Every structure is written in structure tokens, then in C-alpha cells.
């Protein structure tokens, strides 16, 4: 049976998605996931979510998908071992060296590759399987036929986002450092843990500089109206039966940085849609189309507000740095 895995960006959100029928919830460990602290959970909160999930017979995945500093590796492993002892059934990881160490240390946990691994082809999937991944998250743009082929040839667990990019644009994440090029700061906490502002790969927020208005110039002459430089993915549903038939094992609901109520409502719709698919050989998903459109609109509104806040932070940090160097 396919597993729906939903986000727990806050304690409240984590409980809500489990209540709505997600088989697993994923939560970011403070300072160790590709989000800012506001979308991560403290140690006490993670422990609480594990107890709550266990009570419901569900699972918890802990997101530790930053690309760490070398000197953080012992701290990383100690943390992963602790979460496993609390009952975490799996981890999301980006750094392939760290991934192999976790597999050696904890042979029975699930390892989900993070989107930060930047997979582009079936050989990437096999590489990650070979070093210990049990679930490999595929990029937004693969076709159902490609997913089916990868599942057949690799035998690894296949995870897909309920999120797709409609057209071209820059690859993100895993292959983008634009945010930190403009605004980046590093500091150590009392325990020696690195913290970063401006880099999702390193554990802060991506500051979404791709979503500001850019002038596109050729030979210093503008030839386009001001534009954003990356398209945004959107929730999808219509191909869900085909993906499940292709062998997808895990459906990942996005939204750790969205409101708890929006994520709750997304999980509610997908739960019903999945149940319908599993009950019928020819499921009719048309009744969900209207609800999905509303959710997309709410998603877009929240994304716009968040993007504006992050871009403002990037501008402020850039301005401060420039003043400091003048």
C-alpha cells in the first residue's frame, strides 16, 4: 500500500496531519533541515510527535537533510541515533557520505534521499540505492513511464512529491546557490553546531531571490519585461492512479512552511482521493478538482507572502553587508 507522508512544520501541524490519516509525518530537526527554525521542531516537540504517532500506529520520519560541515558529522550521527532510539522509523538525508554512515550505524531504519540529492536519471537512483537508500525521491519532472522504469530496474522504494513544475526554469533544489550568493551568514551555537542564514542546503531558508523581479539583458540592453527566474511547482492529482500503478511507494505532501490549516486540508483531500483510488480500478477523481483548485489558490497566497518576507530579509542582509564593506 502506498504511504502518504505529510509535513509537520509545527507540533500542531504534525498532529493535524496524523489525525487526517497520513501514514507518516516528517519533521525537521532544529538546525538540521532545509528550512529555517520557524519550520523545525525542538527535541521535546519531536519526542512528543513520536509518542503521538505511536499511539495512532503511525510513523515519524526526521528530516536531517542539510549538507553539513565535516566537523558536524559526529554530532549528526549522535542525533540520528537518539531519534532512532525514540522511535523514528526513518530519516531524510542529502549528504551521501552521511547517508552511508547512517546505514552502517542503523541497518534497519529507512533512509529517504532528500530532494537535495538532485537526481536526474535512473543511474543516480541506483547509486543511492547502492549506498543504502531505501526510498529515493524523484524529481518533479519525470514522466509516469520513467517512474515505472526506475522502479522496475532499481527495486528501491520510490517517493514522489504531490507537487509538479509545469514548465522549464532553473533546477531547484540541490543545484542552486543563488540565495547564499547574495545573503549568507554563519554562526556557531553553544554546542558547536553550525547555523546558516541564506542557504537551504546548509540549514537556513532559501531566500527566494529567484522570485523577485529581474531585468534580463543582452549585451547590457534590456530585452524582456522584469521577470521572476523560476517557475513554481503546483499541487497535482490527475495522474495519481497512474503513478501508483507504476509502483510509487510513498507520496510526499509538501508544505512544512505553510499554515497548519492549509496542510491539514490538503491531507484531507488527498486521503479521500487515495482511498478512492485503492477502492476502484477506475477511480473517478473529478469530484476533487474543485477542492484542489481552492487549495492551489490558498497555497499561492501563502507562498507569495512568504516569498516577500524572505526577499525582504535578503535585501536587508545585502544592504547591511554592503554598508559594512563601504
Amino acid at each position, binding site marked *: 500500500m502506498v504511504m502518504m507522508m505529510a509535513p509537520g512544520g509545527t507540533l500542531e501541524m504534525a498532529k493535524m496531519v496524523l489525525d487526517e490519516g497520513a501514514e507518516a509525518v516528517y519533521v525537521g530537526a532544529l538546525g538540521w533541515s532545509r528550512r529555517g527554525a520557524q519550520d523545525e521542531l525542538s527535541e521535546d516537540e519531536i519526542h512528543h510527535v513520536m509518542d503521538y504517532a505511536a499511539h495512532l500506529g503511525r510513523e515519524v520520519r526526521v528530516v536531517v537533510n542539510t549538507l*553539513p*560541515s*565535516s*566537523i558536524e*558529522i559526529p554530532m549528526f550521527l549522535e542525533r540520528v541515533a537518539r531519534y532512532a532510539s525514540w522511535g523514528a522509523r526513518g530519516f531524510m538525508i542529502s*549528504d*551521501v*557520505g*552521511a547517508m*552511508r*554512515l547512517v546505514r552502517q550505524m542503523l541497518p534497519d531504519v529507512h533512509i529517504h534521499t532528500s530532494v537535495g*540529492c*538532485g537526481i*536526474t*536519471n*535512473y*543511474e*543516480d537512483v*541506483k*547509486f543511492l540505492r*547502492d549506498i543504502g537508500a531505501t526510498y529515493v525521491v524523484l524529481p518533479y519532472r*519525470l514522466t509516469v513511464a*520513467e517512474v515505472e522504469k526506475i522502479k522496475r530496474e532499481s527495486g528501491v522504494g520510490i517517493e514522489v512529491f504531490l507537487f509538479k513544475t509545469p514548465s*522549464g*526554469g*532553473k*533546477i531547484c533544489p540541490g*543545484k*542552486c*546557490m*543563488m540565495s*547564499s*550568493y*547574495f*545573503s*549568507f*551568514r*554563519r554562526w556557531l551555537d553553544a554546542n558547536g553546531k553550525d547555523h546558516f542564514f*541564506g*542557504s537551504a*542546503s*546548509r540549514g537556513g531558508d532559501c531566500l527566494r*531571490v529567484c522570485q*523577485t*523581479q*529581474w*531585468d*534580463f*539583458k*543582452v549585451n*547590457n540592453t534590456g530585452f524582456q519585461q*522584469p*521577470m521572476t527566474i523560476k517557475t513554481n511547482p503546483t499541487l497535482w492529482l490527475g495522474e495519481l492512479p497512474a503513478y501508483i500503478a507504476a509502483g510509487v511507494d510513498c507520496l510526499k505532501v509538501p508544505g512544512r512552511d505553510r499554515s497548519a490549516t492549509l496542510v491539514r486540508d490538503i491531507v484531507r483531500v488527498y486521503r479521500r482521493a487515495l482511498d478512492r483510488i485503492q477502492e476502484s480500478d477506475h477511480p473517478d477523481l473529478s469530484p476533487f478538482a474543485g477542492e484542489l483548485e481552492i487549495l492551489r489558490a490558498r497555497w499561492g497566497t501563502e507562498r507569495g507572502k512568504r516569498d516577500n518576507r524572505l526577499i525582504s530579509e535578503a*535585501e536587508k542582509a*545585502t*544592504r547591511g*553587508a*554592503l*554598508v559594512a*564593506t563601504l
Partner: protein
Amino acid sequence: MFELSTDACNIKKLRDGDFSAYNAIYLGDFSCPEYPQNFSSNANKLKEGLELVKSRGQKAYLRLYAVPSNHDMPWVLDLIDAALELSFDAFEVHNLGLLRVLQEKKSTVPVHLGVFGNLYTHETAKLLKEYGVTRVYPNPELSLKEISYIADNSPIDVLLPVHGKIPLVISETCFIMEHTDNSKPCANGVCSFPCLEDHWLKRGRDDGSLNDWSLKDTGRMTLSGKDMCLVEHADMLVAEGFTAFYVQNKGEADDYAGRVGAIYRAALERAFAGQKDADCTPWLTELGALSQEGLCNGYYFEGAGQRYIGRN
């Protein structure tokens, strides 16, 4: 004593540029298979490029396409087979899947991990060594301290980029084509190589704003607007034990590699000879003039990539 390397994407670049300052050349454009006569996507051009580099007494490293999709894999595998028949000194690989392919083919050619290989830790370096990787290009977000740690704690060489624009984003689609005027051939999906002209993404300029953000776009890759420059810090790099240095040349004019290379050859030779505190002013003036948007240090000193911190 040390190796200074740069890149040349095709035979024309290789012939037209002055590469005399360099010990080694990375052949090919790893970002765009469509680029004219690109070594990374034209197996029939490999021998000519290899022979020209070797005739100059330099090492030749072949760059493989960085983001091959499933649809690209057949031609990439054919290119690898053709390259294995030749005597390249190394392959540069950005894609972990291609590392696995090379291992399955039992290739003995050394592998250099490219910038988009996402190398952040010594543990990853140790893992990649088992796949034939002998040299890594650390992710640009790493500081010099972090890079030194990797060099000291893994059985692998580190390539240190010292000058040129920083690769920041790579995509499997062409941003320039996607935004080309409908009247041009590119708008119909037929590449007419508009990237041969300079394309820039800018904001905050021309209005007195301090938020001067700029990026150079080559279609499938976005680079920093500013040129990373470490010429002032050559003494420190030598003291840290680095021996392999790289100048990024993608998207630059034909004279860029030659002029930059001559400066770094001189600066590094002085540093390795123990002649410290060279007057960098003339070098910085020339390097600044070659850069449209100015100089930066990248992330080496733990700040935003576009900042510049001098020796003093």
C-alpha cells in the same frame, strides 16, 4: 609544484585562446550539450582536442554532461565509450549516476568530481574515492577552513577555484531559449546559440539602489555576476597546502583565460617561492577591468558569495 587549470568548451576556444599559463585544461561545457562543437557532447571532436592539448605539454581532462536525464543517457554512454579509447588524464563527473556507470565499465581513468557534485564533507569524499574519484571541486558554499579540513581528512586531492565567475545554478532547460523573442529561431525550439552574446540578470541597478544583484546567464547555467578573485590571498592558499588551482572560463571572452592565467601563474610562483606580500595592485587593476560587475571572494571567508575581503 602546483597545477593551474582552466576550461575550454570546444576546439575554436582552444585554438583562439592563450592557454600557455596553464598546466591542464578541462575540455568541454558540462552545462549545455547543444553548445557548438562542445567536447562534452561531440565524441568526434575528442581526439582533435586531446591532441592539441597534449601537443602543448598539458594534461587534458574531459568534462561529462552534468545533468543527464534518462533521455540523455544513451548518447552520454556512447561519448564515454569513445573517450575510454583515448588517453584523457581524467574525466570530470558531476552526476553520481555517471560515477556508477564508470565503475561498471571498470574504467581506470581517474575521476574529478565537478562543482555540481555537491561535495560538502570529507565523509562524502571518502565514499567517492571508492568510485574512482581522485580530486574534488568543493561546493562553492564551503569556507576555506572547511575545504582544508576535507583535504586533511580524506584521501583525495582538492581543486581550489581561485578566479572567475562562480557556477550557482544548473538546469536541464535553456533559460535564454525560454525567453527568446517569438520572431527568432530559438522560440521554436531550434537553438541558434543566442548564448554566444552576453546575457545578464540584474536588479537594483540604474536607480541608486544598494541592492545591486547581478547574475550572468549562459542559458543552462547561471553564474555569479562578480568574478571571484583570490590573487591577494595567494600566500595564504600556499601556506594552507593547496596545490591545484582553477580559473573558471565558461562564458568569457577569448582573451580572458590568457590574461587571468598569466597573473595567477606569476602570483602563485612568487608565493611558492616564499616571496610574500607581493604588491597586488597592478594585478587587481587588470582583473577588475576584465570583470564587468567587479570582484568577490566567493564563500571562502564565511560571508555571502558576492562579498570581497582584501588581504588587509
